[in-house]
């Protein structure tokens, strides 16, 4: 379990990093915390010619509230969020998610941008940030573009990143005082990847709800208008109105044939709903 040979660069600024990526014609991999890429290199599941280590890029470490949103640079670590070293506009939602990612050792090094780029279906941020309505900014030498997290994750371990492009920042909208948040996951053991994730951001006053069912084999199921899951109406009694059959149907139509798997996902989502309503 040793990696195949690769070249290594540690650029000093984002422009240099993007230039290296552009010059590498797609055979480069970006490393930040290395918590997923490290094992994949050692297992020779990826054999890039070049590793671009972006961990020295100060531009990607910023964390600031800008208008009604929080902008987190791609290099912000899970531990930064867990420990409250970054500002928070989610009323503690992100902090709680961060605190339960893998193990502390992973959280110390793992980054929010790396987690999104890796696009592991079982990872926390792709589900949690989709539920929170976050967007990502991608940058290449050609410029920047922005998209919703759920659009960014296009498949298992597959993101919308083009060759030469990098996740620059995550933009998280502020959670209103009226919005309830619930996030639940089931893991075989502490620190393992989840085998079921449920997330809900619900605003009964506004009659709106975003729901995410994550840790399925492919991209999370993101329902931006979840009214169907509450019998056609979202109101203060949404907890009672949560429709497990509708959730089960969603999973079945996402191709999950195994009834026990669907039941676990629905039950975990129900936990998130109960947490939001608590």
């Amino acid at each position: 379990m040793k990696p195949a040979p690769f070249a290594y660069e540690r650029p000093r600024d984002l422009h240099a990093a993007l230039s290296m990526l552009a010059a590498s014609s797609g055979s480069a991999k970006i490393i930040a915390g290395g918590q997923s890429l490290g094992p994949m290199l050692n297992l020779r599941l990826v054999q890039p010619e070049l590793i671009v280590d972006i961990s020295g890029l100060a531009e990607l470490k910023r964390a600031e509230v800008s208008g009604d949103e929080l902008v987190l640079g791609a290099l912000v670590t899970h531990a930064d969020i867990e420990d409250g070293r970054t500002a928070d506009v989610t009323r503690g939602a992100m902090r709680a998610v961060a605190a339960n990612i893998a193990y502390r050792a992973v959280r110390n090094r793992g980054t929010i941008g790396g987690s999104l780029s890796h696009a592991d279906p079982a990872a926390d941020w792709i589900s949690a940030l989709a539920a929170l309505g976050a967007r990502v900014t991608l940058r290449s030498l050609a410029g920047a573009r922005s998209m919703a997290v759920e659009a960014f994750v296009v498949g298992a371990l597959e993101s919308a990143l083009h060759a030469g492009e990098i996740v620059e920042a995550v933009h998280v909208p502020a959670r209103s005082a009226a919005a309830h948040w619930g996030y639940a996951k089931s893991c075989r053991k502490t620190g393992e990847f989840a085998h079921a994730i449920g997330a809900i951001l619900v605003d009964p006053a506004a009659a709106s709800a975003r729901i995410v069912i994550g840790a399925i084999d492919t991209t999370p199921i993101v329902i931006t208008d979840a009214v169907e899951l509450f019998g056609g109406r979202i109101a203060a009694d949404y907890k009672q109105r949560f429709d497990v059959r509708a959730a089960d149907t969603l999973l079945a139509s996402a191709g999950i044939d195994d009834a026990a798997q669907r039941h676990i996902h629905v039950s975990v989502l129900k936990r998130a709903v109960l947490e939001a309503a608590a």
Partner: protein
Amino acid sequence: MKENAKLRNEREFPHGKTGQGVGARLPRKEDDRLMRGRGQYVGDVRLAGLQDVAFVRSPLAHARIRGIHVPERHRGSVFTAADLVGIKPIRAVSGLPGFKISEQPVLATGKVRQVGELVAMCLAPTRAEAEDIAASVTLDLEELPAIHDMLKAREPGSALVHEHWGDNVFLETNYEIDISTALDAPIKVTREISTARQCMSPLEGRGVVATFDKRLDQLTLHSAAQMPHITRSGLAECLGMEEGQIRVISPDVGGGFGHKGILLPEEVCLSWLTMRCGHPVRWLEDRREHLVASSNCREHHYKITVYADRDGTLRGIDCEATVDSGAYSSYPFSACLEAAQVASILPGPYKMPAYRCRTFSVATNKCPILPYRGVARTGVCFALELMLDLVAAEAGLEPGEVRLRNLVRPEQMPFDNITKKHFDSGDYPEAMRRALAAIDIDAIRARQKQGEADGRRIGVGISIYCEQAAHGTSVYSGWGIPMVPGHEQASARLTPDGGLELRVGVHSHGQGMETTLAQVAHEILGVDVASIRIVLGDTAMTPYSTGTWGSRSMVMAGGAVATACRELGERARRIGAKLLQHDPASVVLQNGEVRGVNGSVSLKAIAHTWYRRPQDLPPDVDPGGLEVTQGYKPVRDSGTFSYAAHAAVVAVDPDVGEVEILDYVIVEDGGVLVNPLVVDGQIYGGLAQGIGTALYEEMPFDASGQPLATTLADYLLPGPTEVPAARLDHMETPSPYTQFGVKGIGEGGAIAPPAAIANAVNDALRPLGVELMQSPITPHRIVAAVLAARAAERSAA
């Protein structure tokens, strides 16, 4: 039998409990080194000119090798079976009638029979470069049907792992006593029960550094091994060398659990390679190799019927057990170690008048099954204890009552059970009663009636087992495997400054024997434990031993140390008497000095005189001096029987399938405990592994025989948060047959937890009509069973 009764009557371990002798809770001496990261493992061995090896392994479970293509630039760095002229395959035969022999080539010839089988070895200055070379080698393989299901492998017409056998059965055994008398029992419960294939997963994997010393004409093999002397015998057989030409050094070892008791093809390969290349070579197992290629265990299947009376009295057990032995018979324990033992140990500590058991050791295209802590006992405990809960449910009794009705009673000791296992001592019902009281079974039943606010369901489960340990010549000679334990030897010598050196052939890889063997020596000689050095794990420095396995080391090596130290003490006493100018009959050895009526002389002074001032010795002194090697066997070598009752309380979420262990109690009887602190550690560690078996660990295979859990992200081991703070209670019923009354306890912690936890989960879910008969109990299996039960209820309604 008289030996220990006499010992105990003479004195109740004067140095124990509060001192340093038998019974003292001494912190481990070796921890000063190990806990500071100063241990020296195979991976720490540095030799000039060392090069690394990576292996090309079979990607297929079953295939004919048509060709191995090595790029021109790497010729000379890659070696295949064709290069290994004169190297014999590994053969681990059993003398049991009908056993079919497998030959495991150290590098594949003709066929590959498991994923991960060694095909070629690649040599380079670093492991990474060796892996690059390995990646450049291409194999031309003709895929054959893979045999991955042991039950299908038994069917006629199955593809064959070893064609010339005609079937896939290493060994079938049959054992029967009066089963016909049980058939009219009012309670008859039949089930199929299975345990998953697991990987032992010690912190340190296997590892080998081989070098050849031309001056000594000796191959030195550094290997993470539990049984270095057996490794040497096996190497000598495969390499065609004299045993004296081989030295096996096993340095610090980071956990063995049976996995490191096996002669590895890699050990043979690297031995050959260093002699071929003329420089030291190294191979360190990585975690993927460990999971995929070399360490599998535990895969059992039972079809079992238990017969009982309405009051829960056992009338008999009828069982057909199948064990997936994998592709080859591993050295020295053989491919039938597990299955053939099932027949003799399934009845455990229970009385019954009738019994039948057929067993099959089945060859499949998986890696060989190896002994793992508990060996077959974890499986049989799981099978029988789950069945007894079903008998209890059928009889309308508490599970504890069924156990108490059938367990061997203390007044029946020593007791021969239905398979002639000879139980030396113990009070099994008392252990069970204490466990039931400690877990507070009545309070749990009351709580179950109330239900839980969070929707989870509470369950309680119990299990009990016996652990035959340190079984010796009379037991193993019948197996006819390459290894039969005889007298265990220890060497003891006083150094010129009065220190004590002990050399024993067993090894310590987590057992704390550098401490416990010193405690035994202290008990006899009174030498300060800090001044006692234990030499282990080196064939050049220790007496021959079959090594550390079967929970034997404290009984056997401890007994040998005691015996050698007694003889050494006797010699010192006679010298001391002369120095004191006393009649030898009038002096005693006490607290490290020889005492007479008019004075005393320390062992230190005696040693100084013997080595440094021999002119002070009388001319008729015993020339044997202060160095002794003595052998030891217990008075009876059929083994010690330690045991424990386990009780678990769990909370189960039937919709998500999560299981939380709320409480765990172990009431354990390991005979006289040399160091209760070390025993506690053994039990906690075993419990963690038992929880792994119960809830987490599983190596699944697909239909083509591919192992699917190839990293620790897929193969789940319990971590600190999955292991509860268990409550331990010790009983100490001495064995009548051993020094100090000790019993072997190394494996017990890992035997009972799967059964106790499964019984607890089933207790929680029984009102839903759910029954889980397969380990590990995963969330998916729980929820699938809950849904199936709900569907059955709906269709019945």
